[in-house]
């Protein structure tokens, strides 16, 4: 099915210009995002009438019962906003990282960036009251988010230094060093869990599985600046990431400030990963599935890939969260399980495609 997808779309652009296709897909994704938001707001352990919800949200009458209003306002609105921010952050940071490493398999979750962020988040939880108390006093509520950002930054930078030689990143070196860096972070996280008390353990479990169930307005506000940072950086790096696909030298020849672009991308990826891990734990595969599927349809140009990934990632995570909330209602599946269930097969497809020497999404 994945292989059949590009042939359906590619016939639409016989002149090789996929810009219109890019715009079309972005519009379609925006519509899907609206639908997914409506589903997310209205469905759950109790469902709300869509028409009533619309009237309520646009401030024209209140057909909702008090209980429905509380559910929508206090639970589903922050949760929907959180899914949008986290989904967009994960997908864009995945797409950027793949551009930086020139490798469609680079995903913050797979190559250990997320585990770095998780390690620092756990460090903040476990040591925040003792050794790191001064830091905790200084950073206040933002401590976990900022620590997770630092963890993501350190691991992204480490990975780039280890896996890249002369501007080129070898797939096996990347994946292997990712595993090593991830294992190291995992081991240190394990050490911290060993010394954690019961209350801290409950918080830590939340990170290992990934969930949007703890979404509150303050948490939405804590992740918002990082996703805004990512959004601001996106148009500044799109052209550079395109040029980098031809190599560092060729990008420089075309007037790209290569080092600056790379630093910006590492910073943006770490910010997005750190912030999303801090509020929602490790949610895997969104960063690899969304950009990959989009490349099949609109091509690899980051001008369209990055904004489309943001909208696509938000939509996908909203849908995954709706599934996680409703499939076993009133119980809730961890969302990381849902994303892994459909993400892992796509990852396998990519690996098999690479082994057979095929690029992804060949137009001809």
């Amino acid at each position: 099915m994945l292989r059949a997808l590009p042939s359906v779309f590619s016939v639409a652009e016989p002149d090789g210009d996929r810009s219109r296709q890019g715009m079309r897909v972005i519009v379609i994704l925006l519509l899907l995002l609206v639908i997914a938001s409506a589903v997310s707001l209205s469905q759950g352990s109790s469902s709300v009438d869509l028409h009533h919800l619309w009237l309520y949200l646009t401030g024209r009458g209140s057909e909702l019962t008090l209980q429905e209003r509380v559910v929508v306002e206090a639970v589903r609105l922050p949760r929907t906003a959180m899914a949008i921010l986290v989904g967009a952050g994960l997908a864009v940071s995945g797409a950027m990282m793949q551009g930086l490493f020139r490798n469609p398999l680079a995903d913050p979750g797979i190559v250990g960036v997320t585990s770095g962020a998780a390690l620092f988040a756990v460090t903040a939880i476990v040591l925040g009251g003792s050794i790191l108390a001064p830091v905790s006093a200084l950073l206040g509520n933002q401590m976990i988010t900022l620590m997770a950002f630092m963890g993501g930054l350190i691991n992204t930078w480490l990975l780039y230094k280890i896996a890249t030689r002369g501007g080129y990143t070898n797939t096996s070196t990347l994946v292997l060093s990712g595993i090593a860096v991830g294992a190291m972070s995992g081991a240190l996280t394990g050490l911290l869990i060993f010394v954690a008390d019961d209350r801290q353990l409950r918080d830590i479990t939340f990170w290992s599985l990934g969930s949007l169930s703890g979404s509150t307005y303050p948490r939405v506000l804590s992740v918002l600046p990082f996703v805004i940072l990512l959004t601001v950086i996106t148009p500044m790096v799109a052209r550079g990431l395109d040029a980098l696909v031809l190599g560092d030298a060729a990008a420089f020849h075309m007037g790209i400030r290569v080092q600056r672009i790379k630093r910006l991308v590492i910073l943006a990826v770490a910010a997005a990963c750190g912030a999303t891990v801090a509020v929602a734990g490790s949610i895997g595969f969104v960063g690899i599935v969304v950009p990959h599927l989009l490349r099949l349809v609109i091509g690899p140009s980051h001008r369209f890939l990055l904004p489309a990934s943001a909208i696509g990632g938000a939509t996908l995570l909203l849908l995954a969260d709706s599934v996680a909330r409703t499939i076993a209602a009133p119980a809730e599946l961890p969302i990381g399980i849902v994303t892994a269930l459909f993400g892992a097969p796509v990852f396998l497809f990519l690996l098999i495609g690479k082994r057979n020497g095929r690029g992804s999404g060949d137009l001809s």
Partner: protein
Amino acid sequence: MIDARNITVIRQGRTLLDEVSIALVPGSLTVVVGPNGAGKSTLLKCLSGDIKPSAGGVTYHGHDIHTQDAVSLAAQRAVLPQATELAFPFTALEIVRMGAVAYGATEPGLAARSALARVGLSGFEARSFSSLSGGEQQRVQFARALAQVPQPLEAGRPCALFLDEPTASLDLRHQIGVLEIAKAFARSGGIVLTILHDLNLTAEFADQVVVLSHGRIIAKGSTQQTMTDDIIREVYGIGGAVNRLPQASVPFVLPQSRHIGGLDL
């Protein structure tokens, strides 16, 4: 004018270039020849600003290139690299479009199309770069370089094309086609420097030949001055190869003679 003065490049204790000085003047096509490992690509990297020489310097129109940033250099010169491998399936048009965007074309799509047409690749726009043959990929890259410096003179200032073995995987017809475009670029006031291995093509297209060996300039000047039996023997270790016809039973192809008889491609 592009000027390289006494450039020396030392990497890991090895001297890759030793006191090399060359001047590239507008209107002239310079060919760098020499055996493998002579330092040709290193010289091109110094001239395009990729690497900073250990000693000596390069100026574009009197300005040191290492005081200029990537954007300013990109407006003055384009570079055709040797073979490139892509991780993502860009189309030929999308690759060339990057050059047009670097130039600042108002309609980069259109500019890219016309650059592809110049290298004879109309109709290849939607083809994935990775699915093209080596020679076609090289021509797409050449079109990208042309899209980046579409005019030899920009506001009265000459632009430069640096080509690293542009004919390496091309058939005879396209070898000549690419070099004729480069020659026309120079004729209209631009600066061209190209690395070539084919001495016959060098003899036909070069205004200035630079013969490099072991990082040093062995000879520099017109084809008459540089392509002599003595120099070829010194550099390549092959004597008696210049200007002598082989036995009548050994056929050979001399592209230069197409101007005298037969079909001009």
